[in-house]
């Protein structure tokens, strides 16, 4: 049995000895390097671009400005959650008349190497007429503010409105109301490897691009469309990738420019983004302002939840369309059964880097808002926040449950789960019952501790389908071709385990191939926690079909019914007698001799997402002198339905938590009043180090396997991230409950805590 085992990853050995092949590691003969000239202004008219001096440099191979690109070039289209109304706000690969954010590509230079290309970039003079930058959603919506996309007619690019029940009536009838403004700051995935591409044209004019990932086949199609080149004329090859997390692998301006440049000069062109460039050019995420009104009664039961949300989407609409806004409202109600919901989401344009998804898109934001509000309700009523949660949770007998809100084109319908149970498990694990005693004792010793909980519902397994093809190679190795991509999450190992389980072979004998459009027929890719759920199910069925075929060959060979045969440890075995008949390899030979092809393809289709759920709990100690927060204990319980490899699931959750912690306390893509990013390096943009990330206890639960796929898997990629901010904010608020601290905005800053401490206790204990 391989499914459910914490086996070592098949990806690791070559990565450990420095033999990974990331796009920057590839060197082709005659390879040139590209550098992108980017706008230094947040908002400006381009008056003139002078490339003459740069052209004089002997090493310069090509210079492109917006005017050099084909006149009929399309803008980069939306991949997910496309919306017709937003097509007028899409980005073109190079700016022409105006730039709308600092970092927008204005020109491209190709030279013999990056040093030379950077020299040349300095010689390009772009003349701008700066315009007033819009750096805030409310500024953007002011009637006097310039409209960034005149064809749309407003900086309020799009409004989503979802509701259930009569919100005004329910609010009016609620004995208590609470109104809050909450803010989640701009931050993003920030993988350790920046983006990069390498494109070349062979003697047959066929274009090959190294470096695409995540949604390789989709982007292949987009490039073919933008270049007006047949898909067969283009090959995409995925390389090793230094972290995905949402931003990587989308179709960016460079994904057009680099192949275009290679076609122009007929030599390989490489582009490796530098770090500052990454911070300015690659998708940002998360920035949202929420205005919440909730109506509730004295028991803590919430009857109405109204939220008006302003998503700062940045200068253009990129490939994610309105994915983040849609998911924000779709899962905003979380695990609670609330009668009245009213969510308005404004998608607002500003002069900042465009945005997209980042691990747990919409849920990180929404979970912070909702779980903070629950604690604020509890505080107002002087109730135990876990009791308020209990009183509002959806009960297991209400499953499947829908709150009537849609996301990504489907009604959100929680498929299964036991929410009260997971809360009870976490309360027990954290010893919540006795915590107040410990807290009082600690306080007597001058130590302020607090415990915070945050519950969440995730979504996973987005369709519409995934593809897998399995085939036995002559050497007995199983070749598994998948439409998924590997962004470091261990997809090769997980799929190998699934195939191995089905076919009775060691997982180390499964070779997983992905991301090569010449080799893998089709695919949707790795995003939205869909890899194991959808791609894993495709591998499961493809292997099952292949097994049937092998057993049939064996059955014919031994004149036994195939139903009585199975494969165990690479041996065809008779089930009823336990008799070992022959090895797989001998059957492979028989099949070959008979001209039977041992290859199966399967496309697994699914039209509903799965909804894993969980809870985070944090115990913190706050230093009254410095305001420093120490996380004393951190606990995550997560019902993933079925863990294919618990070690990898745990790795996802711990790693996800570290990213959530960054979003909760450290990371911010901050802009000044001129629309300049002021946190463009790792000295200002603080990724959590090993000193910040605490030891994390993970409890992987398999209480409610998903009924929607044969594995029962619900996916595990994002649940570690989404509830960190409210768990920590609730814990800090609990620790400092006697102080005037009101945590409604991220990141949580030590100065804010220090400020509250300085003011002194506002409530007498």
């Amino acid at each position, binding site marked *: 049995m391989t499914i459910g085992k914490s086996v070592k990853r098949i990806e690791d050995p070559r990565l450990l000895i420095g033999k990974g092949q990331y796009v920057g590691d590839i060197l082709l003969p005659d390879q040139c390097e590209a550098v992108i000239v980017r706008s230094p202004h947040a908002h400006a008219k381009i008056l003139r671009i002078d490339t003459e001096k740069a052209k004089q440099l002997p090493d310069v191979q090509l210079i492109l400005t917006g005017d050099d690109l084909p006149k009929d070039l399309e803008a980069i289209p939306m991949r997910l959650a496309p919306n017709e109304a937003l097509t007028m706000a899409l980005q073109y690969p190079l700016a022409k008349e105006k730039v709308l954010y600092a970092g927008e590509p204005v020109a491209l230079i190709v030279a013999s190497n990056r040093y030379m290309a950077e020299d040349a970039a300095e010689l390009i003079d772009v003349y701008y007429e700066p315009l007033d930058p819009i750096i805030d959603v409310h500024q953007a919506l002011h009637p006097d503010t310039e409209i960034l996309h005149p064809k749309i007619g407003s900086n309020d690019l799009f409004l989503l409105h979802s509701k259930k029940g009569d919100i005004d009536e329910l609010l009016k009838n609620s004995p208590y109301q609470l109104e809050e403004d909450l803010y989640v700051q701009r931050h993003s995935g920030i993988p350790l*490897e920046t983006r990069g591409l390498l494109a070349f044209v062979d003697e047959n004019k066929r274009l090959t691009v190294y470096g695409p990932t995540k949604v390789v086949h989709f982007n292949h199609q987009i490039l073919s469309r933008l270049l007006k080149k047949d898909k067969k004329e283009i090959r995409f090859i995925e390389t090793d990738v230094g972290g995905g997390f949402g931003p990587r692998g989308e179709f960016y301006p460079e994904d057009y420019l680099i192949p275009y440049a290679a076609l122009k000069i007929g030599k390989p062109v490489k582009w490796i983004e530098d770090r500052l460039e990454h911070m300015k050019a690659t998708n940002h995420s998360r920035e949202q302002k929420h205005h919440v009104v909730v109506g509730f009664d004295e028991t803590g039961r919430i009857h109405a939840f109204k939220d008006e949300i302003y998503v700062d989407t940045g200068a253009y609409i990129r490939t994610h369309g309105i994915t983040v806004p849609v998911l924000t409202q779709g899962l905003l109600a979380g695990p609670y059964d609330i009668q009245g919901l009213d969510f308005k989401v404004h998608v607002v344009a500003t002069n900042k880097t465009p945005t997209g998804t980042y691990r747990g898109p919409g849920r990180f934001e929404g979970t912070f808002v909702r779980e903070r509000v629950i604690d604020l309700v509890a505080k107002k009523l002087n109730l135990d926040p876990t009791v308020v949660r209990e009183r509002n949770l959806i009960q297991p007998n209400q499953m499947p449950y829908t709150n009537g809100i849609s996301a990504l084109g489907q009604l959100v319908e929680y498929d299964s789960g036991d929410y009260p149970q997971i809360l009870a498990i976490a309360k027990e694990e954290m010893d919540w019952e006795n915590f107040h005693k410990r807290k009082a004792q600690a306080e007597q010793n001058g130590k302020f501790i607090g415990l915070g909980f945050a519950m969440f519902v995730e979504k996973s397994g987005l369709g519409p389908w995934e593809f897998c093809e399995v085939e036995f190679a002559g050497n007995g190795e199983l070749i598994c071709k998948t439409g998924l991509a590997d962004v470091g999450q261990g997809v090769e190992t997980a799929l190998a385990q699934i195939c191995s389980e089905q076919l009775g072979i060691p997982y180390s004998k499964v070779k997983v191939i992905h991301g090569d459009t010449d080799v893998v027929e089709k695919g949707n890719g790795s995003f939205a926690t869909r890899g194991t759920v959808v791609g894993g199910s495709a591998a499961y069925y493809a292997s099952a079909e292949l097994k049937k075929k092998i057993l049939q060959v064996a059955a014919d060979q031994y004149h036994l019914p195939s139903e009585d045969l199975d494969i165990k440890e690479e041996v065809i075995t008779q089930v009823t007698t336990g008799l070992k008949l022959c090895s797989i390899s001998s059957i492979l030979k028989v099949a070959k001799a008979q001209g039977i092809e041992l290859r199966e393809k399967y496309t697994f289709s699914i039209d509903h997402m799965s909804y894993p759920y969980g809870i985070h709990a944090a115990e913190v100690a706050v230093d009254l002198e410095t305001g420093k927060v120490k996380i004393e204990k951190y606990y995550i319980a997560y019902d993933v339905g079925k863990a294919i490899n618990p070690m990898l699931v745990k*790795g996802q959750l711990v790693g996800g938590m570290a990213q959530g912690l960054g979003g909760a306390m450290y990371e911010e893509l901050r802009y000044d009043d001129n629309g300049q990013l002021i946190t463009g390096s790792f000295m200002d943009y603080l990724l959590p180090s090993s000193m910040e990330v605490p030891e994390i206890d993970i409890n992987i639960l398999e209480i409610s396997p998903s009924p929607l796929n044969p594995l029962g898997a619900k996916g595990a990629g994002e649940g570690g991230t989404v509830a960190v901010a409210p768990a920590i904010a609730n814990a800090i608020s609990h620790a400092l409950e006697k102080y005037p601290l009101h945590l409604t905005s991220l990141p949580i800053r030590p100065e804010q805590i220090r400020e509250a401490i300085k003011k002194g206790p506002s409530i007498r204990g």
Partner: protein
Amino acid sequence: MSQSNLRNITFSVNGKGYNVQVEPRMLLSDVLRDELRLTGTHVGCEHGICGACTVIMDGRPIRSCLAFGVQADKAEIKTVEGLAENSCDFHPLQQAFWEKHGLQCGFCTSGMLMTAYDFLEKNHNPTREQIREGISGNLCRCTGYQNIVEAVELAAEIINKKKESLEGPADKRMVFPSAEVEV
């Protein structure tokens, strides 16, 4: 760039001698990656924070993105490619990172391994807290560090066991200056 501007550097990387001509402004990380084609050393930030480009130069871990190639003239360098004693083997750190799932995307791993290598040279029986401090100059975006800490802990154990089998129990062993003890 004219030929006259090129500088000659002679150095040893993973025990092998090299002589290359490079521009004075070329970063050591680029010399290793582009000239020597040792691409196991990764470049994550080019401003000395992430640590992905960490290599050992003359016995000290350095950020190869913050050094020029010419500064490595006559130096001895060890990169991830030279970590294992022979190419078919794993160094105990590599083995432990594999066992403990100490990597996901693998991009920070080379630098992390080199930092951990240097750390274990100086700390034979580290506590988890010491390990956390020891690797705190290397950023990892995937793992949340927990499994890296576990891997370094395990590697220390493996190294100590190997030593013990070579030299007898630690408490009865003769004390060698650390440079003489080949692990």
